[in-house]
């Protein structure tokens, strides 16, 4: 039963992420079509600033490179050998006015158009030539990374569950040894203290979210990996699922504490109730923002520190080598910190989710009734 919940939650995450990716692409689409009309009139003004930006760093443009590395793309590029990219193109699945089009991104990557879709040069997003709305539910780099990590998680946990079922009450063997303390850690340090007696109902979700965030943080650190948890689409879905869990498992005590906190005088209540109502939405929003900003900033620091080498190398080759030594050391240090941050952010997301759910299912102290 819990395994099934595990699978259901991970597939829900996968589907929601596809939808979110698509919808964000649509909104970006319409915004960029509107922007293009404005662009043509202010093209004269825009050119000097972009040229100045490019001239400041010569041929090396760090912000472009960083945006490329932490952003989503329709092709998965591992590295560049000279001028040639080593990677593969991913399928574009677009639902437009003439039905679903499925084609490899390579068909429109170089600038040609296929089925009425082409890539806009400035925003690097897929546009439609006649400006009609379409829904982009392609398999992008982030979606593929999500699917890979989901299958990895399902495979690992199904294997371990099978081992537990076939050899109950024996000592753990193999990979079980590594995961059992972590699972017990989530159960004893996160689920039981926060959720009290009802922890079993929410333990599958907490375990899923903990391992999902942790494994995606780790995969994002691999050079050539996809930055999934540093993307607002993914963290928004995770926070949204926590929000839905809170809403659907809340009881009367929770709502009473929000709208009319007992034991509080009326003048304070007038200020407190709107704040509490806002808090219902701000807490999951903060969950999303915390995870996204921590992981994204970690990746950007490492990329910036490495870009520093090339920026300085353009001025002076010797300076470039010196910076390379410093940057490599600092980069390794930052990678170690990122490993820690990956675990800590997964832990914090899980424990705060457990805390909020625990608040929602808390039975209350019944102090007023005992006078």
């Amino acid at each position: 039963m819990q395994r099934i919940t595990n699978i259901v939650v991970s597939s829900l995450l996968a589907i929601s992420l596809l939808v979110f990716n698509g919808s964000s692409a649509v909104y970006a689409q319409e915004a960029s079509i509107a922007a293009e009309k404005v662009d043509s009139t202010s093209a004269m003004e825009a050119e000097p600033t972009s040229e100045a930006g490019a001239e400041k760093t010569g041929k090396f443009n760090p912000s472009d490179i960083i945006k490329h590395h932490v952003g989503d793309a329709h092709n998965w590029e591992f590295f560049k050998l000279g001028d040639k990219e080593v990677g593969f193109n991913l399928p574009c699945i677009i639902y437009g006015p003439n039905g679903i089009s499925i084609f490899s991104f390579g068909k429109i990557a170089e600038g040609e158009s296929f089925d009425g879709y082409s890539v806009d040069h400035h925003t690097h997003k897929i546009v439609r030539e006649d400006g009609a709305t379409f829904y982009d539910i392609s398999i992008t780099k982030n979606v593929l990374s999500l699917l890979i990590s989901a299958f990895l998680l399902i495979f690992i946990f199904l294997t371990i569950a099978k081992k537990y079922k076939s050899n109950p009450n024996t000592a753990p063997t193999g990979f079980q040894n590594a995961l059992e303390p972590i699972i017990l850690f989530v159960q004893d340090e996160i689920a039981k203290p926060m959720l009290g007696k009802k922890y079993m109902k929410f333990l599958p979700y907490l375990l899923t979210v903990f391992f999902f965030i942790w494994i995606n943080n780790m995969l994002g650190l691999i050079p050539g990996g996809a930055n999934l948890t540093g993307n607002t689409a993914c963290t928004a879905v995770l926070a949204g699922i926590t929000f839905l869990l809170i809403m659907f498992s809340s009881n009367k005590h929770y709502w009473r504490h929000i709208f009319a906190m007992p034991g509080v005088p009326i003048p304070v209540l007038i200020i407190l109730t709107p704040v509490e109502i806002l808090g219902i939405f701000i807490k999951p929003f903060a969950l999303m923002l915390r995870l996204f900003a921590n992981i994204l900033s970690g990746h950007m620091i490492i990329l910036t520190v490495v870009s520093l080498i090339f920026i300085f190398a353009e001025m002076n080759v010797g300076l470039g080598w010196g910076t390379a030594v410093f940057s490599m050391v600092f980069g390794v240090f930052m990678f170690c910190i990122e490993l820690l941050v990956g675990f800590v952010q997964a832990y914090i997301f899980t424990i705060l989710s457990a805390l909020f759910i625990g608040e929602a299912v808390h039975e209350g102290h019944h102090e007023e009734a005992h006078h």
Partner: protein
Amino acid sequence: MLLLETIGMAGAGIGAGLAAIGAALGVGRIGGSALESIARQPEAADNIRTNMIIMAAFVEGVALLGVLTCMLIVFK
């Protein structure tokens, strides 16, 4: 236009730095009081550590809101 844009960028940089100072002050206080209370009562160390991490997450969340605003300035 270029001057205004540069001033905007500089503002974003200063903002991010101030957010970092805020986060450091907040988390430093939390860590300091947590260490003090662990020193006073070592048996409660686990409890204190859990609460410290939760509080640090909240404080850092607010600081990251500031960093997000600065990132929006730079990338728009």
